[in-house]
């Protein structure tokens, strides 16, 4: 279904929060004010790596208007956090490992007192050598950032014998690929408001992808039972993975607790850049061998990820990259070795695509190089190695059968032909060259095998006859808030208008895990499916009483319960609510995201996958090597379309994010310090960079019982390799490092003899000796 077809679906409804957000009227949690609230802030490290010799807060405490200055001594519970491994200090005691590390927090009456106090805190550092390259960090001689050393995580996978595979190969291609430290660049920087309640509990208004996750982490830090903390986490001004981990919440809570007053923190963009998570920069070496007829025989991969100072989700991101190193291709001899390495370069963590974007750039680059070496169409090489519907997954595990790979390849073939026929070569000017590139990908959804991938939710009838659906994951801009009523209408047979959605408040929602890994939409569907039988029987039994019918003659429907056959409404949801009195129907379930039945498979192995095929068109200015993406078309196979507007939004938005990753986004660091400290130098695409985008939402011919797959990530994954391939098509230069640097591209073009003199229009460059006078004579006549 293309965009027009999606638009014409009855389920094409504007997202409820869209208008407010587009007009800038939405009040986010960081817009909240509370009478008498204090302003909080934190002091971050002056050094990317140093020992702390001394911390003196006495002068700061004397500044008028300062209410609290906290350091590590003031943490009642665990002075560490981290979703899986708690290794990140809330406050550093004796050592800092990156420029975002926190030494102290201050609450004051005003911004100016706060700033003075932060400036008055004296910290004596002893700078340590900065570890800025993962390869260097792995050396035995390197300074160790943690007692366990600098290797956070190692993950390998192998099948067959790559030596044997290469020996049998007719061609072998080899390259090193490098990917940038991309920043999430959510519109709303980190912050929130924390209120100490009269009953001794804390309410924390702070955007996150996982309210319950934050609650558990904060309880550990405060040494409290979780129930004493309430997290309100919606609405959120963007996250993309960047707000799953804690950021300023611990300081909000500790400051509010120590002053007994409400405290607000809202980070500036500069501080957000300095402290926030980024996408893992990866250096990926790949060697791939194939037979003359294009069958891949061996694939050898080494991934080194720069995970920065602390763990957060570094191990899981690496596992994902290792799993996706072979993508949708079936290869007999495979060896993948992955290392996630600590450095003093910020902290890398969860980010839309979760390691898939990096490894797909490399893998698809290999496919193009193989095609080139074989003199074969890049599409054909891919086809010859593609998985079939019931093939096992990349780690050898059983996965839900899917024809997604073939479907997206068919899209790519069709769209590429269409795009190429549009490009009459003559239409470009002398100094511009166009190129077309393709890429495909296969992307796992959910957290995977043996990961705490809880789902669940609650349905209940309200006193006013609304069907209230509550989930513990968040609306983080992805549009699940619009998808929930649509899914409810479908699974519970009600009308969209019957539904009320509750998200983002631990006091009102059950646990459902995090909004991550493209799982929210799928989770809603699974949960509702499981809720349905109980819900139906509870509702029908009350309706039977109200309507004086047999339950078996009734069914759920829009607005209430209907006669099974005639279809007439016999008891509205309000009637049922009235009849139920205090005993309103309610069903709550907890379950787990679907995983592979092969329990022997590696941790994190996925069961459900989605697919994307991308066709990118670029225009390269040969004089400057500026690259413009003029077309970005994606065919996506992700199960059924639940919320068409949300689907389009995710794929287009993801596409633009992928374009930024390919062409401009990189949080540059030198010796552990950010060079791009704000959005004047860290560039993301603007509306002017957004190309023509076409979308084909490929609907499965036969639907399985695993429901929609979620499209939060898939639209970002294969964009960069398609753009890189298009640049190669235009210029002959192979791109190995992202973002594509113009200076590198221009120099590479020059090496290939692509200089001004070659491109000058032929009438200007021919017959140089007599050209001047004749040309002018003829043009003036």
């Amino acid at each position, binding site marked *: 279904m293309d965009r027009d077809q999606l638009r014409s679906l009855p389920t094409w409804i504007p997202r409820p929060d869209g208008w407010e957000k587009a007009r800038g009227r939405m009040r986010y949690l960081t817009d909240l004010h509370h009478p008498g609230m204090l302003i909080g802030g934190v002091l971050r490290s002056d050094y990317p790596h140093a020992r702390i010799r001394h911390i003196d807060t006495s002068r700061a405490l004397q500044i008028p208007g300062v209410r609290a200055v906290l350091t590590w001594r003031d943490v009642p519970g665990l002075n560490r956090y981290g979703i899986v491994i708690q290794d990140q200090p809330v406050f550093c005691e004796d050592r800092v490992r990156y420029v975002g590390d926190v030494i102290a927090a201050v609450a004051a009456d005003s911004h100016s007192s706060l700033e003075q106090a932060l400036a008055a805190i004296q910290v004596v550092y002893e700078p340590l050598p900065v570890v800025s390259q993962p390869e260097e960090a792995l050396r035995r001689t390197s300074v160790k950032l943690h007692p366990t050393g600098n290797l956070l995580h190692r993950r390998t996978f192998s099948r067959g014998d790559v030596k044997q595979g290469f020996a049998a190969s007719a061609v072998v291609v080899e390259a090193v690929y490098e990917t940038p430290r991309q920043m999430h660049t959510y519109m709303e920087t980190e912050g929130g408001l924390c209120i100490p309640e009269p009953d001794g509990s804390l309410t924390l208004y702070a955007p996150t992808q996982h309210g319950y996750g934050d609650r558990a982490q904060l309880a550990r830090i405060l040494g409290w039972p979780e129930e004493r903390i309430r997290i309100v986490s919606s609405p959120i001004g963007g996250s993309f993975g960047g707000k799953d981990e804690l950021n300023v919440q611990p300081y909000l809570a500790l400051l509010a607790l120590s002053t007994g007053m409400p405290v607000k923190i809202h980070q500036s963009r500069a501080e957000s850049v300095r402290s926030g998570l980024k996408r893992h920069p990866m250096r990926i070496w790949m060697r791939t061998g194939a037979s003359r007829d294009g069958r891949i025989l061996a694939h050898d991969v080494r991934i080194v990820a720069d995970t920065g100072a602390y763990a957060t989700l570094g191990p899981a991101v690496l596992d994902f990259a290792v799993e996706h190193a072979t993508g949708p291709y079936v290869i007999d001899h495979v060896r993948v070795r992955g290392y996630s390495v600590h450095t003093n370069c910020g902290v890398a963590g969860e980010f839309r695509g979760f390691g898939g974007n990096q490894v797909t750039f490399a893998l698809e680059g290999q496919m193009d190089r193989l095609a080139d070496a074989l003199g074969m169409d890049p599409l054909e090489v891919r086809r010859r190695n593609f998985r079939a519907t019931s093939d096992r997954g990349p780690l050898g595990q059983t996965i839900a059968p899917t024809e997604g790979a073939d479907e997206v390849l068919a899209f790519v073939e069709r769209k590429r032909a269409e795009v190429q026929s549009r490009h009459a070569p003559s239409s470009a000017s002398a100094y511009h060259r166009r190129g077309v590139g393709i890429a495909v990908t296969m992307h796992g959804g959910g957290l995977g095998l043996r990961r705490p991938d809880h789902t669940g939710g609650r349905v209940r009838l309200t006193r006013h006859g609304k069907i209230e659906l509550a989930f513990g994951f968040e609306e983080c801009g992805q549009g699940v808030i619009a998808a929930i009523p649509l899914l409810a209408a479908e699974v519970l047979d009600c009308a969209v208008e019957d539904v009320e959605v509750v998200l983002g408040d631990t006091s009102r929602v059950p646990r459902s895990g995090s909004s991550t890994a493209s799982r929210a939409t799928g989770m809603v569907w699974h949960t509702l499916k499981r809720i349905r039988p109980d819900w139906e029987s509870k509702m029908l039994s009350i309706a039977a009483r109200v309507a004086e019918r047999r339950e078996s003659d009734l069914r759920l429907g829009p607005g209430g319960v209907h006669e099974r056959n005639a279809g007439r409404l016999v008891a509205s949801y309000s009637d049922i609510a009235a009849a139920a009195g205090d005993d309103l129907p309610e069903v709550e379930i907890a379950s787990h995201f679907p995983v592979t039945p092969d329990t022997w498979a590696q941790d994190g192995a996925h069961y459900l996958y989605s697919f994307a095929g991308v066709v990118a068109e670029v225009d390269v200015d040969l004089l400057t090597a500026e690259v413009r993406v003029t077309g970005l078309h994606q065919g996506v196979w992700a199960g059924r379309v639940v919320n068409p507007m949300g689907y389009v939004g995710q794929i287009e938005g993801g596409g633009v994010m992928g374009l930024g990753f390919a062409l401009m986004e990189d949080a540059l660091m030198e010796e552990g310090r950010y060079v791009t400290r704000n959005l004047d130098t860290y560039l993301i695409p*603007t509306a002017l960079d957004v190309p023509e985008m076409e979308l084909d939402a490929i609907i499965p011919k036969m639907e399985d019982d695993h429901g929609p797959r979620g499209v939060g990530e898939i639209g970002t994954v294969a964009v960069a390799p398609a753009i890189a391939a298009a640049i190669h098509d235009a210029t002959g230069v192979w791109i190995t490092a992202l973002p594509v640097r113009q200076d590198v591209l221009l120099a590479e073009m020059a090496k290939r003899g692509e200089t001004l003199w070659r491109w000058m229009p032929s009438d*200007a460059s021919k017959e140089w000796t007599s050209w001047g*006078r004749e040309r002018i004579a003829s043009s003036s006549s």
Partner: protein
Amino acid sequence: MEPRVWLPTSLAEAWACKRTLGDSACYVAGSTWLQLRAASGDTVPSEWICVDEIADERDVPVEVDSTLHVGLRVTLAEVIRSSAVRRHWPHLHQVCRFVGAPALREQATVVGNLVAQGDLVPYLLVSGASLLSWNEGAIEEKSVSEWLTFRGATSDALVSRVKIPKELEHVRFFMRKVGRRAGFQPALVTIAASLENDDSGVIDDLRVAVGGGVHWPHRLPQVEALVRGERLRPSLLRELHRMIQSEMRTYDDAFATAEYRRVVVANLVTAFVASALEG
């Protein structure tokens, strides 16, 4: 820290204010450049002498005897909106749009851009613009290039107006800002060039200026002299390409090498010259 704001009502008063406050003060037009610097962590003066209330200066550009007078309060948006500019200064119109994004241009001024050595300066250098400034109780007029060279010595001078000669029809112009995305960004390099030739194809006048980013905006006099009075020939184009690279002063930074900037300017200007003479 919040700056202290002064609102003088005449050029003389503003200048006197600056003279008294010295280095702790600066003139402020749209304040966009100053805010950008403050946001990057640079220290900016704490006393702001705002030009908003200065009488006698217009808010819109005015055409006087084939010259465009742009007063110290005129924003880039006003220049872009001016029908005179669209008609007779189409390349000024173009370069104003190089700067920032629409909302920013409603606030940012031409004079502020000139003093901050922004993207307009290469154009101003090539177009032969001059400026009026108030200093030591008198108005002085200097060419933009002269002013750029000597401003260090007269840092209290208050620029009151920029005067830009009409773009002549027989002069060809070339304006380009090279950056890392399609718009709203700092330049890697900004280029302006103009070319005049006689009917027989002899180059009367080539002007080339380079600026943008943290370049000190400058013309390339040797390059300009190289082709003056010459007829275009392939060897001359090659010499031009070489000389642009050797004459221009540029820099390496985290985003592009100096070499890249040199080659890009040489490519663009050479291609411009070649195509302009083609007809």
